């Protein structure tokens, strides 16, 4: 919809300051798009495929020559740039799609389930490339059901429910809204009374036993000093560690609450 591939029924959006309905060409000039299963012209080489879309994007022949090798090297396909795409694996095609975005140098990159068809190793490499894209200053809009990947790449997350944004913000903010805390710590301590002691700390909203005398506490603020002050005299405190709130947990809890509300 943001790229004009589908028509909106209502509402309005701005991409890089342009309305996709009124200025679709301006929007498309600034946006790179990578679908979940990208397609290329099989009978053409990687170079010809990318040169075609680059020409459509308005790049000159010189710009194409300059950017092609750099983009392909960055995604690790420099050695097969002149090969036909029909010889490429799915992972290589996804990388080539990313190279297309790199050549275009957009302000915004829309990545739709980019790791769906990739094996775990390729997924990790691909996520690293996305981080590189972010580091270049490109705003990355990543759509995925793999929440661990989303959490590892994205600064802000939006959860959709029935086509509408239900929650949005950083993972910490979402955890604050859904789990009731947002500041999550793993506490390791010896003693039978540790759970009671932790529950009694003002600001602790949730306690979960992880096993092995480790406990995860969700807090409304950074309560590490207070936890240490309360535990240390009555039990043997081994350590307090940061534990990032899990987006999977936020998601599961949010939709469980939605289901309960409906029931």
């Amino acid at each position, binding site marked *: 919809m943001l*790229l*004009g*591939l*589908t*028509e*909106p*029924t*209502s509402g309005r959006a701005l991409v890089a300051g342009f*309305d996709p*309905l*009124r*200025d*679709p*060409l*301006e929007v*498309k*000039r600034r*946006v*790179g*798009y990578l*679908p*979940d*299963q*990208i*397609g*290329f*012209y*099989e*009978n053409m080489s990687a170079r010809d495929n990318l040169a*075609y*879309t680059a*020409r*459509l*994007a*308005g790049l000159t022949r010189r710009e194409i020559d300059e950017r092609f090798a750099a983009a392909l090297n960055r995604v690790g396909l420099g050695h097969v740039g002149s090969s036909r795409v029909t010889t490429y694996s799915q992972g290589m095609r996804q990388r080539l*799609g990313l190279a*297309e975005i790199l050549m275009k140098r957009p302000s915004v990159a829309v990545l739709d389930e980019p790791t769906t068809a990739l094996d775990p190793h390729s997924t990790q490499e691909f996520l690293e490339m996305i981080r590189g894209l972010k580091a270049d200053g490109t705003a990355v809009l990543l759509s995925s059901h793999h929440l661990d990947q989303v959490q590892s790449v994205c600064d802000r997350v939006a959860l959709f429910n029935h086509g509408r944004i239900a929650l949005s913000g950083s993972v910490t903010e979402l955890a604050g809204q859904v789990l009731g805390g947002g500041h999550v710590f793993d506490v390791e301590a010896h003693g039978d009374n540790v759970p009671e002691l932790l529950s009694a700390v003002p600001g602790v909203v949730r306690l979960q036993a992880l096993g092995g005398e480790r406990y995860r506490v969700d807090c409304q603020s950074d309560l590490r000093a207070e936890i240490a002050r309360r535990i240390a005299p009555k039990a043997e405190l081994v350590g307090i560690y940061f534990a990032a709130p899990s987006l999977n947990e936020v998601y599961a809890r949010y939709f469980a609450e939605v289901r309960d509300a409906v029931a």
Partner: protein
Amino acid sequence: MQSHRRGSPWTGLGTVLAKEAADHLSSARMRILEGLVFLTALYSAFSAIRSIRATIGESPFLFLRLLTMEPDPLPFSFIGLLGFLIPLVGIALAFDAINGEFNRRTLSRVLAQPIYRDALLLGKFLAGLLSLTIALVSLWLLVIGLGLLLLGLPPSTEEMIRMLGFLVATIAYGGVWLAIALLFSVLFRAPATAALAALGVWLVFSLFWTFIGQIVTPLVAGPAEGVLGPRIEYINAAEVIDRLSPNTLYAESTQALLQPTTRALGPVLVTLNEARSMLPAPLPVTQSFILIWPQLTGLLAGMIVIFAIAYVFFQRQEIRA
């Protein structure tokens, strides 16, 4: 939601056109079709030349006879053969134009670039038309060259003008079939279905149209015969229905252009005295062009209308992969 969009709809048209034309001209499909058309058309032209050489001096339009003569043992002339094969070439060039992009998952990637759908669809159509034109011009030049070589006579200026008109009519005729195939490539996601649908239309117009006309005409214009004989309303309706077929428009155009003695297309109502006073002399080339003008514009209009229908359907499609 409706909104006025900014930017030229032709942005990227040249790039799409160049890529698609290159694809067509280098594809095995196009080479096979060209080979088929060249082989059969040249065989018919060569056979005609052998027959014509025996009768040199009998006709002032030898080169035109080269195209219209039905030489033994062939049951059809050069133009008859082209009328049969050109739709196949047009269909073959466009039946997978849009649905092929869908199936390759390239459509969303291409349309994510700063171009409108207009440029993609028109670029594909023009590339098909350009490829068809290149093939037909080559064939046209080859036949003229063959005529020059084997007849030993150059074509007259009038013959060249008529043959050029024939070339334009053939390209327009091919354009109609290209547009039909493009429309089906937009409507059907499976290329095989699109090809089958286009071939079905071709079969209807090639084999069954006369039969369909015979059924439909009495329904819209009443019986063929009146109290005083054949009814003019019936004849007019039959002619209109017949001319809804691009095959009829093309056949009439080529007949008037390549057989200069053709003085009218369709039924002519004249008195016996008028008929006696009509000379079997050829029409001037300008008069022949006036005669086929409705047919030629009909072919061009048909091509544009069918393309416009494909355009409307394509604009409304969801492109997401």
